[in-house]
């Protein structure tokens, strides 16, 4: 049985329907019509729900887009919809949305209200930045967002500072009182529900967060009973082992973002995470899913290729470890045997004062958009500025997430200087094979990768190359 708490009620659902999109369950089965169906792609947030999980006795909430969330992923969680935060009076967020005219046609509004209320339940401080972050996956076509920002400001004015306790939020009219009982209810639910033993299946669809599979083939998700990889304790660990950073395949992007171990290992990646889709999608999307989806433009894939990661593949409890760069064979073809699954990802922590790691991405819209080209570069220099190690990756320039072997090899042993960069640009251009598609023309992608490589280098030394000398060379070929 799939068991969870929906707002203030315990719910049991037949595992036969584990692949049903949660929004369909809400609107069709439960007749809760507050959350809206808009895109079925996780691109707009109108269906956002809060997913609460019991962590060390406390319920921590994340927002997720229910249109592409498998019903199974609600198991043992507290799910909150707009109906679950409604009270006799408007709650603090709702009142401020009304006061600031943050709603026009109203169709996106429940999603915004859920997201904004959720921002108060993430355990993070109540700041403008965190409020906005929690609605960065929400699209509004009417307001132009400024009135919604004003509503957020007003919430911050009222609650600003440290994360607020449930009691405070209830007392100040932001939440119904039943929220206090949820931790206990979840505790009980966890105890009552025997952990079913996970048996690896040989065939069928393996499903993580669902953020891509529900977009690509929603029908198959409803009709099959997918094997749910999400939230499996065996695949959820994040750790540092010596100089190596390791994490399980069903760790989500949000998990890594919040992981102290990760942030110590690869510091300063806030902007990188912000460039990855949106908060609700990051909360759902597993990194293993990102890797086996084999999209030639997957941001996290390019990031991990730049770190020269290794992956652990498992078949019948037998592991093999290969370099991620050897995993991709052709468009959507991987070195993955029948029944084998991705278990863990590992990389050497980029340490040392002359070690640089940079990720760059440009898309049509800066956030929540698929890149035209993305790229990562890991560069190790010695004290004489000689390059001792280099790993360059780029997405959108070939049929697979591209590890630029030749260019990387070329860099090693050279001095980090203008001449080397110029030569490398030629190598890069020889190595890549971009095509024209919805993300841009082949010419643009060549130009863009040149610019992103230069951006990597300028981050290390801003005077190493005068990019304005390249005016008049928009055709790289």
């Amino acid at each position: 049985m799939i068991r969870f708490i929906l707002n203030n009620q315990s719910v049991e659902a037949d595992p036969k329907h584990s692949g049903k999109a949660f929004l369909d369950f809400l609107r069709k089965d439960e007749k809760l019509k507050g959350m809206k169906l808009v895109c079925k792609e996780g691109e707009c947030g109108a269906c956002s729900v809060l997913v609460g999980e019991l962590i060390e006795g406390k319920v921590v909430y994340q927002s997720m887009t229910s249109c592409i969330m498998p019903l199974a992923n609600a198991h043992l969680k507290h799910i909150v919809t707009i109906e679950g935060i409604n009270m006799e009076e408007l709650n603090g967020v709702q009142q401020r949305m009304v006061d600031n005219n943050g709603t026009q046609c109203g169709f996106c509004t429940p999603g915004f209200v859920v997201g904004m209320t959720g921002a108060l339940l993430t355990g993070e401080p109540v700041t403008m930045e965190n409020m906005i972050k929690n609605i960065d996956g929400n699209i509004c076509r009417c307001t132009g967002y400024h009135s919604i920002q004003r509503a957020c400001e007003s919430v911050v004015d009222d609650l600003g500072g440290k994360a607020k306790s449930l009691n405070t939020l209830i007392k100040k009219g932001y939440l119904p009182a039943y929220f206090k009982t949820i931790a206990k209810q979840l505790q009980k639910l966890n105890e009552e529900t025997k952990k079913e033993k996970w048996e690896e299946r040989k065939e069928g669809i393996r499903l993580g967060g669902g953020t891509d599979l529900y977009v690509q083939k929603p029908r198959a998700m409803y009709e099959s009973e997918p094997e749910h990889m999400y939230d499996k304790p065996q695949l959820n660990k994040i750790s540092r082992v010596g100089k190596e950073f390791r994490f399980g395949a069903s760790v989500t992007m949000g998990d890594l973002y919040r992981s102290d171990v990760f942030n110590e290992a690869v510091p300063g990646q806030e902007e990188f995470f912000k460039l990855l889709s949106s908060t609700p999608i990051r909360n759902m999307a597993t990194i293993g899913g990102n890797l086996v989806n084999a999209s030639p433009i997957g941001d996290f894939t390019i990031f991990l290729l730049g770190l020269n990661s290794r992956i652990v593949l498992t078949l019948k409890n037998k592991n093999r470890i290969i370099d991620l760069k050897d995993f991709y064979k052709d468009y959507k073809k991987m070195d993955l045997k029948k029944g084998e699954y991705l278990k863990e990802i590992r990389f050497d922590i980029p340490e040392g004062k002359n070690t640089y790691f940079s990720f760059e991405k440009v898309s049509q819209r800066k956030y929540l958009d698929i890149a035209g080209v993305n790229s990562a570069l890991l560069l190790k220099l010695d004290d004489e500025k000689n390059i001792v190690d280099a790993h360059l990756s780029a997405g959108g320039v070939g049929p697979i997430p591209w590890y630029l072997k030749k260019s990387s090899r070329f860099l090693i042993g050279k001095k980090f200087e203008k001449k080397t960069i110029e030569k490398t640009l030629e190598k890069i251009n020889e190595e890549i094979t971009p095509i024209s598609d919805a993300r841009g023309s082949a010419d643009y992608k060549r130009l863009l990768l040149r610019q992103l490589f230069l951006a990597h280098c300028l981050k290390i030394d801003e005077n190493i190359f005068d990019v304005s000398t390249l005016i008049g060379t928009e055709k790289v070929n």
Partner: protein
Amino acid sequence: MTKENETMSKKKDINLDAPFHVTGRTRYVDDIPEHEGTCLAKAYYSRCAHGEIININTKAAEKLKGVVRILTHKDIPGENQIGGIVRDEPLLADKDVHFYGQPVLLIVAEDEDIAEKALDLIEIKYKEKEIIVDPKDAYEKGSVLHISRTFKMGNPENRFKKCAYVFEGEACSGGQEHLYLETQGAYAIPKDQGGLLIHSSTQGPTAVQKVTANVLGIHMSQVEINVNRIGGGFGGKEDQASHWAALAGFAAFMVKRPVKLILSRHEDLQMTGKRHPYRSDYKIGLDENLKIIAYQASFFQNGGAATDLSPAVLERTLFHATNSYYVPNVKVTAHPCKTNIPPNTAFRGFGGPQGKFVIEAAIHHAARELGIPASKIQKTNLVEDGDTFCYGQVVENSEAGKCWKETEKTFALKKLIKEIDEFNKDNKYFKKGLALQPICFGISFTNTPMNNARALVHVYGDGSVGVSTGAVEMGQGVNTKMVQVAARAFGLELSDIRLEDTNTTRVANTSPSAASATADLNGKALQDACNQILDRIKPLACELLNEKNQKNIRFENGSVSVKGKRKKITWEELVATALLRRINMSAKGHYSTPRIHFDKKKEKGHPFAYHVYGNSIFVVTVDCLRGTYEFDAVKIVHDFGASMNEAVDLGQIEGALVQGMGWMTLEDVVYDKKGLLKSNTLATYKIPDIYFVPKELDVRFLNTRKDNLAILKSKAVGEPPLMYGLGAYFSIVNAILAFNPNAEIPYDAPITTEKILMALYS
């Protein structure tokens, strides 16, 4: 600007719908509880952009359990025709298909899953014909939807010879997906004694009623259309909601059960029309003092595969071809071109933005060649009272100059320009660009007969009031404005007024909620209804208050009194007494805009009740390494008249601005050569998100109280501010030029990150 309106009023205006929206209790079509036995319908659409249907195989789909019926054009009891202006669009394709996405079959099934499965089982074979997607290409091949139109004033051909400077070029603007969050949809329910009730997500209930009745071969009186509200329209549901409501109605009529038809997002993107893309040629002539002496333009409108509203959109392109500028010699011609993409349709601005983009491009072109900022030319040519627009209307109450001056003063323009110049000197890879964007937009349907409305008012025995109008609430706040009008007329609280659904049985033969004129037209009709009731009860009030002169009766704060006197009676008392005296406390109001007219033969007249003006400043920072950008600020002085609800009106400005900015930058509607929409998901079609919007947005209210044809002198605000968005384009271009003064930048919107980077290094 007076001190009072220098900053936004602190007074809290509200939108009465908001408390229901924020709790998710507002009901849209798909939220209406379903009647027992409701079927679900899905349209099967053409996979060929132009061709003959050779064979249709529905056998497998028909065998599927739960498929109730599969309908074709042959089953249509009335006329297979939904075209509004020109009768050239079938409900379901018959012999030929004209665009990829055109409905061919209608599947009626027990539920959505079954309907979707049935779609997968259908096979159609086509014999492909020539596919045209480019409007100029279409025009050359003689593929047009309607007649070309030309507006002319003076003698531009002659005057170009005398101009000091003449520049020519091409300017293109792209399509735009409406992306109303609520997709198109309808729920049709058979009524007793025949006929149908259709809940439709439409801006035009009467259009839906008319089309459905025609398709079913029944009287309009047999079709009741109800609209509670819609989850966004932006023009996309002015005419094109009819298709889906008529299909739902057709299915319900045939299977004698309630039928719901809601488009998925993918279907909506694929099957419905969008803002018209334009390709245009311009020629502009200026004298030594930068006065624009002559302007000529040819607009090639990409109308898609059927006429829809294209001729009307085209007309507005001509009306606004010279934006806020006075040009004495003008010749502008527009061609509605027929192509094999979904029929393009109304979209906020309705052709106006496309026309304005071209003259702004021409001005920018001239300024660049002359080495001056475009704002110099813009400022020199603003319309003044007494000037004539090329369509013959004489300018009255121009606020163009005032808006410009206020913008310069309020936002310290000179200082701002200096700061930007300094920033650009100090920064190698980041460049700022600035652009000014004035607007001038005519208010009224340009099709004069459409400028009318009606309202129904009931005053109930307890003094409460029920109001019905033809206005459809779609987020623009018209419900609130209507309640305000009635409350003000009767001197009651907003909570005393109930606004009913928009329903064709209460208010008939309405114009769609469009053209920014909904509040004006319906509000004036509502005032008329309220006044009729007041006129009937004033004699009674005089009697009860011992007053001789009706003019002295005041209705305020829920009571009725005589000017300057203390004695009063409550509104409820007066109403109760009136009913005892058998006075009719219901009224139907009517309004038709006075003064307006337009002669389509001469292409001259006075089509607009009034114009709305404004000016804006855009500042953008372009990352010249990566070709990305962020908007630092947009500062606006806007002519609101005397805003009756500043919260609602500010929301319209902010929302329209960002929508216009999206059109100019992010939003790229792409069809391939085969007429297939490539930007067919929200992953490939990007609209502004919360990080896209300008970091600083400062909107100042220019308070003008001159235009009596605006409801309570509060000027129409729906469409005009969208056109500020053009400034987004030109500010980015100016930032590119700061990095690369010789950059090649064709005037081709949207200016995507690809175009920016290519231009930076050109």
